[in-house]
């Protein structure tokens, strides 16, 4: 998952980004003002946005309405210094999915970001299932037929992304767009390597599930029994 953090206070942005990278192991990009935020949001595919309201060169609310009017469906968690109910209602009506008022707890922020992303993907449970495969999003735990499968953080992220959309072909480009932020030196080869490792691990535990490589299109999570 790739998340955009829009926050003008550099230290706070850094801490939030770090927490999202270290906790749920998301790819995180940071924008320091409204202009930068719009630019990044328009050009990259994000799975979630953490948006501060008071920004230089335009408010967060403007960014939100602007992006929503352009058809962006990305879930948005708004950070605000005002905990005024009226303002919160206004924000939710503008298209925010959740809000937190400053100062906030980073653990709670991680949980809320995770929740809005999960909901936006149509999943209610914090556990994703496909065939005999089971993934605990919050606990970073994957099991097949009740046997734990050890995945590296990046592999875990790839699997999580695919588990949200089983049986759907996901291109290597989409995968790298959603899984790596600008701090990563990424190209499709990296994904390829990770996927072949994952295939091997899935085969080892006899999960009955594999990641298909559809040449020229991308990857697909599929049960081998089908």
């Amino acid at each position, binding site marked *: 998952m790739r998340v955009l953090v829009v926050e003008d*206070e*550099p230290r706070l942005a850094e*801490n939030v980004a770090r927490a999202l990278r270290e906790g749920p192991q998301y790819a995180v990009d940071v924008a320091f003002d409204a202009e930068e935020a719009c630019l990044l949001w328009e050009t990259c595919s994000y799975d979630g946005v953490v948006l501060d309201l008071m920004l230089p060169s335009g408010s967060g609310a403007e960014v939100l309405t602007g992006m929503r009017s352009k058809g962006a469906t990305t879930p948005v968690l708004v950070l605000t210094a005002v905990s005024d109910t009226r303002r919160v209602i206004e924000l939710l009506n503008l298209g925010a999915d959740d809000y937190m008022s400053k*100062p*906030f*707890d*980073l653990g709670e922020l991680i949980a809320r970001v995770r929740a809005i992303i999960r909901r936006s993907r149509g999943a209610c449970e914090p556990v994703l299932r496909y065939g005999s495969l089971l993934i605990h999003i919050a606990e970073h735990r994957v099991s097949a037929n009740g046997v734990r499968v050890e995945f590296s953080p990046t592999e875990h992220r790839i699997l999580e992304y695919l588990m949200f959309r089983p049986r759907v072909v996901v291109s290597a480009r989409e995968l790298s767009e959603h899984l790596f932020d600008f701090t990563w030196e990424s190209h499709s080869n990296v994904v390829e390597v990770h996927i072949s490792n994952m295939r091997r691990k899935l085969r080892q535990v006899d999960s009955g599930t594999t990641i298909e490589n559809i040449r020229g299109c991308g990857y697909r999570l599929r049960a081998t029994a089908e």
Partner: protein
Amino acid sequence: MSEVFGRQRLHHSSQRSLVRQAVLGIVLAELVCMVALTCVSIWHERRVRLHAVDVAVEGRADSLFGAVQDEEDAGAHVQLDPREMQVPAEDAFAVYDLDGRRLGTSLQAPEPLIAFSGQSGLRTERWRGRQFRVLHRTNLRIIDRAESSGVGLRRPVLIVYATPLDGIWRDIFRGVGFYLVAGLLLLGGTTIFIVALMRRVLQPLGKLADAAKAVSPGQLHFSAPVQALQLAELRPLGLALMAMVTGLREAFDREHQFLGDAAHELKTAVAVVRSSLQVTLLRPRSPEEYRGGLQRAVQDNKRVEDLIARMLLMARLEEGVRGTQRAADIVAAVSTSLEAISPFAQSAGVQLMQVPPCVEPQAASPLRCLLVPVAEEDLGILIRNLVNNAVEHSGAGSIVRVAIGLLHQRIQLSVTDEGSGIPEEALPYIFERFYRADSSRARGTGGVGLGLSIARAIVEGGGGTIVARSRPGAGTEMIVSLPQAAEAQAETH
């Protein structure tokens, strides 16, 4: 509560009413006029009536004399018959010769009224509670004209004629009574009219008061009713109220904005500290990583302290609370401040340059000491803020110039940088609290957006002005103009 209401009610009852005062005044004036008019008309009527009585009395005296003249008997006695003379029955008269011998009287003539007197003329006399108009007149009676070959004997006689004045006052009051009644009716009519008129006239004032009543701290909106604005007398009041409420609202809004901004800054600063600590605790780390995390948290906490200190300073400056309102030497303050900032400037690769003081040609002595009416501590903060700001916005290798001058008896301090400058649209707002002309970069250097507001508050506290001139891309010049401190002026004069 009830005590307060009671006092208010008492206050209310002791209020004076404009309508009551005006109506009372007008009615009183009318009443005085009416009384004066009545008195004058009574006096006039009495004079006219009295004159009429006098003419009548003279006429009757004449006809009496005629009757006496016609009397054939020139002797001692004159026979007078009132019925023949056609005079009112209640009139009394007597005829005397000049020696006081009575020649004849009317029937039942009251003796005191017709008593003989040497003086002729008209007078008013009182008898038994009644007033009489009494005429004494001497006539020349010519008798026995036939006997003395037409010349006749000349016998002067004194005629006393008295007529009662009973009816005169009745007539006067009847005449004046009409005016009196008409006046009273008019008075009543005008009172009602004036009360109605005053109510009507004061209606816009009531409307204005109602509109003003609706203004409250939470509802700082006021528009004067059109009725009030159409009146020349109420228009200034209405406009003044509108201007006042607008000014108040703006002041409230500014305070509200400041509070909101301050809360945002504080919450953000606290959020930074908290997030730094939480990030450190997010997962097990090495002792070095923990140390680094704690050091970051300490740095972040330092920013919270700075922010609070600056906000408190701002509040102190805006309240005008100055510990020691003394004069300080700006020349020394600039030297000290530049010394303090130079390490920071060096690390930023910016050269600080103190421009030699420019002085008015007529100033005799070189500038060794220039006192401004600002406390020494505040003066230091002012200069450091301006120079720091200039250094922060300057690129490496550029120069920040600080100059002091004396121009038109005012002390000028200018700080010029060769930085990126301030966009024209931002220039009017740079002295606003928490305003940042550029984006997050200012925060990166530790600014909280209060430096220039603090500078302005210090300058204005000293009775001076601060302006910024800027050309984007070329640099910014901050110009402070301060009056000389009173003691410095005393020294130079």
